[in-house]
């Protein structure tokens, strides 16, 4: 069931969601088996920014009914260290590497994309446009016009496949996808996490009211919801986007079994990404790909 995606030939349609699988940490934890049983058909890096980021203060996690709110804050070494230290190691993985980058201006994004373009180890670039516009505070990717402008400025900087990771926190996600396509994107991926928050928890059995007013639980103040809780929202957005754009779509959001992956493929996605489910089982991607294959019609 090998698939072609933006010119990349992949062994199967299951990849990882950016920021949900650290292949280098996994190699240290699981040894050579990580490479011999690598669960994804391509590896998407966590989001890389121009400057290093420490990420948000803890706590960074909040468990919800069938979901997870995270406020990680995109910690990363910054472009230079990523390209110098991590990329050579990632290049030894048995699958193509897709590097996910984020910038808060077109110029920043262009610089990131250009730097990736210069590296043969990178097979494709994914733009995380869920980045707040410094002026409006809204995600760059939430405004179709703004998004198309950014793409027009960035597209010429690389011949590698350019995938836009759309934000779900928009009034009209298909319009954003069309803007990305018009701006020259080779593919779109969705959904990213839904804006969410949590307050300091209620002691087991006890009542919260006694300690109110209460502070936000997450060190970052608010965060993003992922996991099965958002599965039906993801399916709706992936279906709506796939119906409008001609470029291939990477569908994700709450996928924890082949049936959920099948749903996304059936509404038009070319690839499926697994995120939070990998936390429950690092081999989830392999299990899902295997079950998809086993259930393949014919």
């Amino acid at each position, binding site marked *: 069931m090998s698939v072609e995606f933006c010119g990349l030939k992949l062994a199967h349609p299951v990849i990882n969601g950016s*920021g*949900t*699988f*650290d292949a*280098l*940490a*996994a190699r*240290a*934890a*699981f*040894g050579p*088996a*990580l490479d011999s*049983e690598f669960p994804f058909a391509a590896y998407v890096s*966590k989001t890389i920014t121009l400057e*290093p980021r*420490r*990420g948000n*203060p*803890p*706590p*960074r*996690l909040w*468990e*919800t*009914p*069938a*979901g*997870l709110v*995270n406020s*990680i804050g995109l*910690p*990363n*070494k910054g472009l230079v*260290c990523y390209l110098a230290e991590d990329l050579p190691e990632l290049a030894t993985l048995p699958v193509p590497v897709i590097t996910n980058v984020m910038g808060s201006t077109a110029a920043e994004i262009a610089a990131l994309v250009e730097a990736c373009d210069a590296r043969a180890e990178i097979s494709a670039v994914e733009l995380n446009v869920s980045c707040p516009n410094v002026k409006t505070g809204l995600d760059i990717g939430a405004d179709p016009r703004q998004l198309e402008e950014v793409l027009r400025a960035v597209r010429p900087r690389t011949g590698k496949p350019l995938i836009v990771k759309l934000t779900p926190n928009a009034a009209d996600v298909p319009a954003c996808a069309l803007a990305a396509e018009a701006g020259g994107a080779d593919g779109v991926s969705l959904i990213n996490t839904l804006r969410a928050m949590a307050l300091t928890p209620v002691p*087991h059995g006890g009542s919260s009211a006694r300690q109110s007013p209460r502070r936000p639980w997450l060190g970052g103040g608010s965060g993003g919801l992922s*996991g*099965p809780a958002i599965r039906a929202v993801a399916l709706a957005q992936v279906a709506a986007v796939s119906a409008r754009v001609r470029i291939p779509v990477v569908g994700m959001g709450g996928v924890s079994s082949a049936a959920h992956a099948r749903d996304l493929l059936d509404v038009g996605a070319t690839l499926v990404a697994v995120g*939070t489910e*990998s*936390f*429950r*089982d*690092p*081999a989830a991607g*392999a*299990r899902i790909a295997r079950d998809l294959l086993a259930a393949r019609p014919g």
Partner: protein
Amino acid sequence: MSDGPAAASLGERSDRAIAPFGRRLLTVAGMDELGAYRVLRVADPVGPRPDPGQFAMLAAAERWGGGEDERPYLARAFSIARWSEGEAHYLLEDVGPGTERLCELRAGEGLWALGPLGRGFAMPRERRRALLVGGGVGIAPLAILQDTLSRKDVPVRALLGFRDAVRAVGAALLDGARVTTDDGSIGAGGLVTDLLAAELDQDEHAVVYACGPAPMLEAVRALCATRGVPAQLALEAGMACGFGACYGCVVPRRGGGYLRVCVDGPVIDAAELDEVEAHAGAPA
């Protein structure tokens, strides 16, 4: 960054036990009561011998979810308290929907496990005396540590603190432990760090291994820092994955940035911390 220098400074432990890739379905061998705690015994034919201080991510195979607030959803982290060919023991305290569900498991039921994970305790150099300081359910990793040190004929002394008598029953997990309780119902009364101070007065060459609530760990860190005693602290943190994937389990590291407790720890050299973060300890 979390995965640079830290890895280096704990380098001499990098030949650690490696987990099989992917969670595996195991069978519960038994569940024993131990005062306020439960001892979960799990048949684990394939898992390698863990290093003392390593942990596993556990989830019930059936009905993991549907508890209070429709949780749990993610697996939960537990120190490996004991290990004998093919059987792992865990010490559980019911503090929420996940531990509540796990405490209900009975022999023959299924359990998902991933591990052993993380970096365990480093062995003391030149057979210096080891002081094992534990608080509450945090005594778990000290049990397997004591087993290992004893096998190596390293002199060991365990100092354990508990909130009350029913929890103090847990001290049976270790041999010849000195016990104190907050409510004074058992043992000396007062803080386990008082016992530690007394021991260090006797022998300033001892090394300290500690696991317990954050305030206890911080007190141990501060005490050892002032006395120049090397200390290894087994930290805790809310974890989504346990293998470095989510970046959710961080604690601030000395000199800036964060450490991932699951891969840079859970055992952290006290020298790496300015202080022990409020969330970084065992349930009090």
